[in-house]
């Protein structure tokens, strides 16, 4: 019994005993029974196998097979990856129809954020049709875990995640995105077919068309 065979046997023994542990934990059994242990003998290796020729040929065959297949690797960064439409990348702050920041500084995103990376200061809005707006809106993109809960919590669809994933910077401060930076990301991504406005006023926006046959909610959202 060679070394490889011995390892296999021990691995199998470990596997068996692990299943046994799980089972005993479940059924509250105390000890492993002797019949649960399966000893495995090492397969006998002849001269042909000992020369490694079949293994080398098998490896070469795999290489040859892949040489004629479509490659699965991506030529990043020369070729951009094809991301799914619900990809969660860098945030943006949407604008309303008049081009103002859509956010009403309700701080629900900052409340729900599990990484505490959103910092908002609200104040009286200078516009007649709005009560409150953010004077400061900062997201620490380094601290963010891109879970997308801010997007779900937002009652006015102001914060959304885009498909931008390759953010770099030479300092930590550079990657704390303020209100203006987040609005610029909106300007840059709003016409990108990958980053449509995801919802509009409670119903799914253009993003629904990309995602396919998801019908907009029909319930009355008025209260």
């Amino acid at each position, binding site marked *: 019994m060679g070394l490889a065979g011995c390892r296999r046997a021990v691995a199998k023994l470990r596997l068996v005993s692990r299943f046994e542990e799980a089972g005993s934990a479940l059924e509250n059994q105390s000890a492993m029974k002797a019949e649960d242990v399966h000893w495995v003998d090492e397969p006998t290796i002849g001269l042909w196998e000992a020369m490694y020729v079949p293994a080398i040929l098998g490896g070469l065959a795999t290489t040859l097979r892949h040489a004629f297949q479509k490659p699965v690797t991506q030529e990043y960064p020369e070729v951009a990856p094809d991301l799914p439409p619900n990809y969660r990348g860098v945030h943006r702050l949407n604008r309303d129809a008049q081009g103002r920041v859509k956010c009403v500084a309700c701080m629900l995103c900052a*409340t729900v954020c599990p990484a505490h990376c959103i910092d908002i200061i609200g104040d009286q809005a200078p516009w007649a049709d709005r*009560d*409150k707006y953010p004077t400061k809106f900062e997201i620490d993109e380094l601290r963010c875990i891109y879970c997308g809960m801010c997007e779900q919590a937002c*009652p006015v669809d102001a914060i959304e995640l885009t498909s931008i994933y390759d953010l770099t910077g030479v300092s930590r401060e550079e990657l704390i995105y303020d209100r203006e930076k987040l609005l610029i990301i909106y300007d840059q991504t709003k016409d990108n077919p990958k980053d449509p406005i995801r919802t509009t006023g409670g119903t799914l926006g253009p993003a629904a068309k990309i995602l396919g046959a998801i019908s907009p909610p029909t319930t*009355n959202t008025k209260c």
Partner: protein
Amino acid sequence: MAIVTINGQDVEIGDNERLNVIQAAKRIGVEIPHYCWHPALSVVASCRMCLVELGEKKPDGSVSMQPKLAPACQMPAKHGTVVVTDSTKVKQAQATNLEYLLLNHPLDCPTCDQAGECFLQDYSYRFGRSASRMEEPKILRADKPSIGDQITLFTDRCVMCTRCVRFTRELSGTSELQVINRGALAEIDIYPGQPCNNKLAGNVVDLCPVGALCSKDFLYKQRVWWLKTRESVCPNCSTGCSITVDQNEEHVYRLRPRSNPQAQGHFMCDEGRFGFKYVHAAERLTRPAIKNESVSTNGNGEVAPDWSRILGRVRQVFSQHTEEDPNGVAAIFSPWMTCEDAYLLASWLRSLSPAVRLALGPIPIVGEDDLYPKDWRGEPVQPPRFVIRAEKCPNRRGVEAVLKHFQQAEVEIGALFDDARAGKLHAAQVVHPGPGGWLNGDQITALARVPFLVVQGLLKSDLSDAAQVVLPGASFAEKDGTFVNHAGLAQMIKRSIRCPAEGYTDARIFMELAGHTGLFNARLLRQEMAREIPHFAAFAAGDLGDQGVRLDASVASQEVAAR
């Protein structure tokens, strides 16, 4: 004793108690929702939220119920009253009523400051229905930010409970607020050009069960679910209103009154409500310092902590001077100090020498006691329901009691200033954990002649400039302690935030000066004070509860027991 049956459960009500059905139900944990009723205001029964099934138990044991629902706030809980709050009929009435109140209520909870402590939200969640059947557009009414200097009105959020109107009529007596128009168009308003600026105006914000009346000072500063709340006592006058301090991330955002029938009732004045700003003033002292001494830095250029060195120097100079001439050593106590702080400082100085003079500093008296409600001439109506005291400090009686224990003869503060002026004082410690403007220019000039003047306080001022040693102390929000109000009611204040920068709490400074080991524990110190000082016998439990304890009563009962 009256027995009221609520949802089949009997509630006992004392002979001298006058409760309505809402209060009786609360006693067994049954909540009857209500907007317009408030224990301190008259009953109008206009919101219709507290409708319940009422009936009467006849002497023969039979129960006769009223055919229609009746408001619980208006119904006195008398013997034999039968109340049902959980029947389908009541639940339907509650849901329908909430739907009606929400007809024209805007859906702006995300930007509303009340969200999180709003009774419309809470009751809708618990008693209401999730969707509205309203098809027509909502009636929009313009906001009224000019309704008062400290308050603003979001007209369309109002549910017309008229608590604010009744408050200005019954508590402040100034009657600025009123209801204009009728029906769906009714709104709260003021007489043109006469804003609601009375000294109790801030209370209408607390009274408002929804987000209609908001405080301009707090508006959009924080979401309420971030605030951490602790019970405390307002330090602005000797009424000693029970309050809560609401803070987040070491910043106090607002003070709110807390109901305490022993102290002030349900409310507080605007002077106290907005008078805490000095806690976060830019002039706060941040590190201990000795005059004309360069700041020591470590190898990285950072300023090294100086506390132990400076306190050691204070201790050494004070004991040296006490040995030479104990009459030339004095301490001036501020009426903003807690009883515990005063006790620690007095016991340290007395341990140096019984001849050290301890004096209570000047008591700030501004005008006269301001009694509410007022009549239409502005004269107070008897009996007063709320008093803003002229004595603008929280703890004169407490500090007096401590000093009286340590020295039988009271030291005149005027004589102390005269001695300072004459150069007879060699070392003095002035402790003032309160706002600026306590000592006047003459007094500060007199103290500036003391060769070793230690000033322990909050703010940089002429007094701290005159000092040889400056020790940054703690404000009322930064420490544990006890205040004794004008009527001898001792209430606990609790630490809400930390001292800014390198500040120490006053008690810690005194403990280190006295060479005590361990940490300051207000509860244990109160127990020690109860053993040492008969006046503070009521501190024996250590914990004074939410409502505080009366010192005089305990002294009186002790005297009775002694006899």
